[in-house]
């Protein structure tokens, strides 16, 4: 229901939906031809409207430089949509354009032409670009005559590059809007068929002005070109440089092929521009017989030179058939300034660059343009599509990434792990181990009587040179600071008798090294680690005090030890620190 509504009646979302629908259901997003001018398209149908009877149509294919007559469409047929549709279908079935994706339809409007002056407030040629746009949008604001109808006629600006300062620098050109509906119908056919049909309504006389460099040269005296049409003759006045000074339009009396009093009219204008003997060139645009016109004009303007331009020759020079309208040369051919010097002057350079002579008089109304999104809208829409695709891809990647992550994590042993209280068991086991270590520490072989006796026996030589009188051994704990461990000391005090040999033995064995060796020997033979001497936390000190035996008696041996000349006291101390493995842990 909203399809035919103007977008101003739609809400923003409906406007967006329409854009999307257009993008999906038409080729407007992909086909550039929808946004090109009719003259830029490869396949074109040129329709020449010389009078009310209808149009002659010509097929033009730019890429193949084909120009071929298609036939004529009468005035009634121009208003029949079905006929136009059928005509276009048949035209596009032509061999040279069968695969075309677009069509340009160019109307040459030669049936009507009128000129009007600009308002007195527009005197500055610098305003031309603004005035050009204003003339399209609001012609009444620009025209001098405010009573002129803008509904029945289309208005465009046309500049006079050769105008003298203070004179008119441009004029307003009007054509009847009579055939604009035909072009609109053609565009609608294109819309309905989803086939770009671009249209253009050109003023044939303006196109004809673009042909002037092909047959004229600059003349010091100035020149006048007459373009003869069915119902009017256009007069173009050029200055000594060949620049256009002014246009004059003269309608033909009923049924006549020439305007009445054209000679005096030209003379009056030429005099106004101080052109005494201008060259006068006459060109029949629609095939009227104008051979007598130059002679007639020479009588009105003595001294002037009159020429009739051969239209057929111009067409043949551009490799075109003689039944093709002359204006087609201006529209479809580039005029080389090197071959035609007049084309290099300001007037024709301006025409070429700013396309003044090929202005579209029947450009679509804004309401019609509003019905479809334009090219930049389609670009944004396409960009949005790409962005959405990328976004969808990113979201898909993120979803896959997220799902994979969540799935792997949720299904992992870690996620499903039920915490178990290990504290009680750990405490119990640790307690068991602590109990073991406690008892293991307490029950270490740190002080054993039989090992002590083994040490004493090893100190005493087996040759009888030493006899022991007493041995005192005791063990005392040594608390070192606050470490919670206790080292201990073992002390041996051995008193005995010895002869000189025994003393020698003792002095040899009871040094630090000697005692250490004895301790090592005890440790190895008894497997008692407390006697290992080389650990860093242990030290062994030894002192041997030999002396003469006071009870020595060489003759009587009643008293024990009286046969030994010497006595000795051997003191051995082994200190084991709190850092030693043998240290007692469970101290108070």
């Amino acid at each position, binding site marked *: 229901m909203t399809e035919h509504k103007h*977008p101003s009646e739609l809400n923003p*979302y409906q406007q*967006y939906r*329409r*854009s999307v629908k257009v993008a999906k259901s038409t080729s407007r997003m992909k086909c550039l031809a929808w946004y090109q001018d009719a003259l830029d398209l490869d396949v074109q149908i040129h329709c020449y409207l010389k009078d009310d009877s209808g149009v002659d149509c010509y097929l033009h294919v730019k890429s193949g430089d084909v120009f071929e007559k298609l036939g004529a469409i009468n005035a009634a047929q121009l208003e029949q949509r079905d006929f136009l549709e059928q005509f276009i279908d048949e035209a596009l079935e032509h061999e040279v354009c069968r695969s075309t994706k677009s069509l340009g339809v160019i109307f040459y409007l030669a049936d009507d032409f009128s000129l009007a002056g600009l308002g007195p407030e527009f005197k500055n040629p610098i305003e031309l670009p603004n005035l050009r746009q204003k003339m399209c949008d609001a012609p009444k604001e620009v025209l001098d005559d405010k009573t002129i109808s803008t509904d029945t006629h289309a208005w465009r600006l046309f500049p006079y590059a050769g105008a003298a300062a203070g004179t008119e620098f441009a004029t307003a050109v009007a054509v009847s809007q009579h055939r604009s509906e035909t072009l609109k119908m053609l565009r609608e056919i294109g819309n309905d068929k989803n086939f770009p049909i671009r249209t253009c309504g050109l003023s044939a006389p303006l196109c004809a002005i673009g042909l002037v460099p092909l047959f004229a040269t600059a003349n010091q005296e100035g020149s006048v070109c007459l373009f003869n049409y069915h119902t009017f003759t256009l007069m173009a006045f050029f200055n000594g440089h060949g620049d256009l000074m002014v246009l004059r339009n003269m309608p033909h009396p009923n049924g006549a092929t020439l305007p009445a009093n054209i000679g005096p009219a030209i003379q009056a204008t030429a005099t106004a521009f101080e052109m005494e003997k201008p060259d006068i060139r006459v060109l029949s645009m629609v095939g009227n017989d104008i051979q007598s016109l130059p002679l007639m004009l020479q009588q009105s303007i003595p001294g002037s030179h009159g020429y009739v331009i051969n239209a057929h020759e111009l067409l043949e020079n551009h490799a075109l058939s003689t039944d093709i309208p002359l204006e087609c040369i201006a529209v479809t051919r580039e005029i080389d300034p090197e071959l035609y010097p007049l084309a290099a002057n300001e007037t024709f350079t301006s025409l070429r660059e700013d396309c003044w002579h090929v202005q579209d008089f029947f450009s679509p109304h804004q309401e019609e343009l*509003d019905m479809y*999104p*334009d090219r*930049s*809208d389609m670009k*944004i*829409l396409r960009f949005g*599509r790409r*962005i*959405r695709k990328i*976004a969808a891809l*990113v*979201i898909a990647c*993120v979803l896959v*990434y*997220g799902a994979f*992550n*969540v799935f792997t*994590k*949720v299904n*992992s042993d*870690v*996620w499903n*792990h039920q915490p*178990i209280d*290990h504290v009680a068991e*750990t405490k119990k*086991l640790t307690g*068991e*181990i602590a109990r*073991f270590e406690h*008892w*293991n520490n*307490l*029950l270490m*072989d740190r*002080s*054993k*009587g*039989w090992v*002590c006796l083994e040490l*004493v*026996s090893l100190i005493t030589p087996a040759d009888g040179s030493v006899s022991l009188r*007493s*041995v*005192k*051994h*005791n*063990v005392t*704990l040594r*608390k070192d600071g606050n470490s919670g461990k*206790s080292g*201990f000391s073992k002390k041996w005090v051995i008193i005995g008798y010895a002869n000189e040999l025994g003393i020698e033995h003792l002095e040899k064995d009871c040094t630090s090294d000697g005692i250490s060796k004895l301790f090592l020997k005890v440790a190895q033979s008894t497997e008692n680690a407390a006697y290992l001497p080389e650990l860093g936390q242990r030290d062994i000190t030894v002192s041997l005090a030999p002396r003469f035996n006071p009870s020595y008696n060489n003759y009587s041996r009643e008293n024990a030890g009286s046969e030994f000349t010497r006595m000795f006291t051997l003191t051995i101390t082994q200190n084991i620190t709190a850092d030693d493995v043998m240290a*007692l842990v469970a*101290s108070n």
Partner: protein
Amino acid sequence: MSDYYRQPIAVFGLIIPIVVSVIMAGSVLYYTGSVKKEYAAKQKEYDLSQQAKRKIKMLRGQVNENRESLDAWDDLLKTETRGTFLQHWKDASEDFNGKELTKTSRSWINFSEGIGKGVSQPSSQVVMSFVGTYRAMQQALMNLETQLPTMQLDSLDMSPEDNGKGVKFTTTYTVWTLR
């Protein structure tokens, strides 16, 4: 050129999809992030649990390894009394005749003045005197100390017997007890 469509296309075709996409992606990432965070916490808990399991396994292994010794010590500590101590002594001295080794005296005190003095573990102290040969004494002490690892020698005095025929030994032991 029409300006009617540009803004709706930009809003509905570009901005809203981008915003929705960002919200969706953000939500997924946020949710994934929260799951990751929760997983990290669970992982930490799991690691601690595994660590605890490994520790318990290790502790069990250690306890099992110690079991035999600890059981033996427990039995010893539970069953040993002064009476059984005498029996051990008798067993240890059975291989020797009276000339080789004779016990002359024995006395007990309920605390230790030796190695056990600075230790929290309860202990008692036994003083024993013997007369005998050196090797018999050493052999007997080895037997006794092997059977009763709870004994730690505090002091040992050794001197010739008055008649010169043997050696007098006086030993003082700290004996670890349960109470």
